[in-house]
């Protein structure tokens, strides 16, 4: 390989060489991180919540009149009884929140009442005895709530219920030896709560970046939230009867009591719609990042084509001389390919450092996860292939320069 003379020649074209290497480096740094973000977002889009999404829908219910908390509680019990009697409905419950809705109630968890630093974080759901069945949660240890454990609760009330059902992720976090059942913890309160049941999986309500480390850490209090400002009914249809159940539910509630507001546009949402809305920004970010990657790669490829074409034009006579001195067409092709490999090699070496640096900066500033070096490796391969692809056409043109060019005087 004629690496040394190529390097010697490149030293005479520092500006173009450095610029294209820098372009490759920046592209690599950005593309690696963008691909990492895209992958994270796309993975996020398909993460299972642990609930029976295919048969679930939610109803956002607002009251049209002013009623007391007791009256609303009674009305909600009547609504739930109505929903549960519908032919297409398997079960129904009311809750303060549900997975992927965004926002919600979050508690710091400690193992002792006077602990200053939290042990971990958990999303809080209120649920009655129908909560597990309605959401399709799999109870893997312990038991469900008893009716006598379920009580109304105001959002402003800071009284920790004595019993709780937690997800396996939370149980394992609190008691890594697997002995969580029957044990207790503290949830922003001086009174402990005892774990009476563990469900396999239940995703928290938030989908924000900060909550990702705790994505499946959730707990269920045996409480009925004071629904005076409105409530969420979560309804599980019988298999294959989702659409019918959604129709029946709305009609049934209105028939039960007309003094309510259910938004005609998004008052009743299937869980597929909830998921779509929840990850709207993730999807948008992934698409945007994808476009940025594509544009950057195109610009870099065009830059390489442009520079190589310029150099081929500039060195036409030189190529003719090389051909006259015995270079074959393949020698000339390899010359430009090797030259590109050397420039791209320098670019990706610098780009790999920049990529890791950018990721570290985003980890610190934007709470991003650490990027696997596989992304950098993949980026390096992509950029090197892009370079070789981009240089091929001009290099092929160069290889076709006739040796008789050497005799041209201009």
């Amino acid at each position, binding site marked *: 390989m004629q690496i040394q003379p190529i390097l010697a020649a490149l030293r005479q074209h520092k500006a173009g060489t450095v610029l294209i290497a820098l372009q490759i480096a920046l592209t690599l740094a950005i593309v690696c991180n963008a691909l990492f973000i895209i992958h994270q977002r796309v993975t996020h889009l398909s993460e299972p919540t642990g609930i029976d999404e295919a048969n679930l829908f939610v109803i956002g219910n607002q009251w049209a009149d002013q009623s007391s908390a007791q009256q609303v509680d009674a009305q909600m019990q009547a609504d739930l009884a109505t929903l549960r009697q519908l032919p297409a409905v398997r079960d129904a419950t009311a809750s303060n929140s549900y997975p992927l809705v965004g926002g919600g109630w979050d508690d710091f968890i400690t193992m002792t009442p006077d602990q200053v630093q939290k042990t971990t974080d958990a999303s809080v759901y209120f649920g009655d005895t129908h909560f597990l069945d309605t959401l399709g949660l799999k109870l893997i240890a312990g038991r469900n709530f008893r009716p006598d454990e379920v009580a109304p609760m105001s959002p402003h009330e800071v009284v920790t219920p004595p019993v709780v059902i937690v997800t396996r992720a939370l149980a394992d976090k609190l008691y890594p030896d697997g002995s969580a059942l029957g044990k207790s913890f503290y949830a922003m309160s001086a009174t402990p709560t005892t774990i009476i049941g563990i469900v396999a999986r239940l995703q928290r309500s938030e989908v924000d970046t900060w909550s990702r480390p705790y994505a499946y850490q959730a707990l269920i209090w045996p409480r009925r939230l004071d629904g005076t400002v409105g409530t969420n009914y979560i309804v599980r249809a019988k298999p294959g009867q989702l659409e019918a159940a959604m129709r029946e539910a709305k009609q049934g509630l209105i028939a039960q009591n007309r003094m309510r507001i259910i938004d005609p546009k998004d008052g009743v949402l299937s869980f597929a719609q909830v998921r779509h809305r929840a990850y709207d920004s993730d999807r948008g970010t992934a698409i945007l990042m994808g476009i940025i990657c594509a544009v950057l790669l195109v610009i870099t490829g065009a830059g390489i084509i442009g520079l190589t074409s310029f150099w081929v034009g500039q060195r036409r*006579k030189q190529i003719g001389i090389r051909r006259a*001195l*015995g270079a074959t*067409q393949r020698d000339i092709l390899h010359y430009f390919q090797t030259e590109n490999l050397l420039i791209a090699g320098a670019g990706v070496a610098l780009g790999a450092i920049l990529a890791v640096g950018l990721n570290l900066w985003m980890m610190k500033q934007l709470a991003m996860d650490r990027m696997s070096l596989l992304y950098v490796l993949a980026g390096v391969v992509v950029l090197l292939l892009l370079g070789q692809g981009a240089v091929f056409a001009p290099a092929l043109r160069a290889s076709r320069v006739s040796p008789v060019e*050497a*005799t041209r005087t201009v």
Partner: protein
Amino acid sequence: MLKMTHLSKVYRTEVVETYALRDFNIDVKEGEFVAVMGPSGSGKTTFLTIAGLLESFTGGEYLLDGADVSGLGDNARSKIRNEKIGFVFQSFNLIPDLNVHDNVEVPLRYRGMKSAERQQRIKESLERVGLASRMKHYPAELSGGQQQRVAIARALAGSPRLLLADEPTGNLDTQMARGVMELLEEIHREGATIVMVTHDPELAARAQRSVHIIDGQAVDIAEEPRFHAQPRRVEVAAEGGAG
């Protein structure tokens, strides 16, 4: 060494055919120093490019070192250029991005020669032209005469069987030209076959034999002791064959 018989080169466009060489005959023996002369547009450069396998020809036969080169592919022609032919061009044709050492090394690398042998040959050929001390200089840092000496060193490094020189002193002042000619004569005395295209009768007179190209045909002017400017014998190559 170099024998062309009834060779022709035609440049065709949609409307016209132009004969650069027509029924061209020449025979250069091994060890000869032949000057090729002729007016502008007579076909001198076309002859040289065909002789150097830089360009293909349209008809006729060309034997180089006894081998017919008519139907050779590009790779074979490149190999012959690299191994058997040395070029010295009017405008030196050094690669400006490479220093003297690397310029001389170019044909040796294409031959796939090992590094140690390359270095030995580069050193020897640059010593021969008196520029061994300028190995790290770039062409732009050398005078015209020095650049042409580097080009000659590059041509010699590969030990070619045939040296083709295209107006080798055309871009040099008198003093530098004299130095380059003396170098070519010295190389010839050592046994090299040289074909030199020139328009300068004084330079041509220093060759063993001169061939005039007129309207694409070779006319052998002289085969005489060197340093005679006056032609002694004229034969139209197309009719009688070169001398």
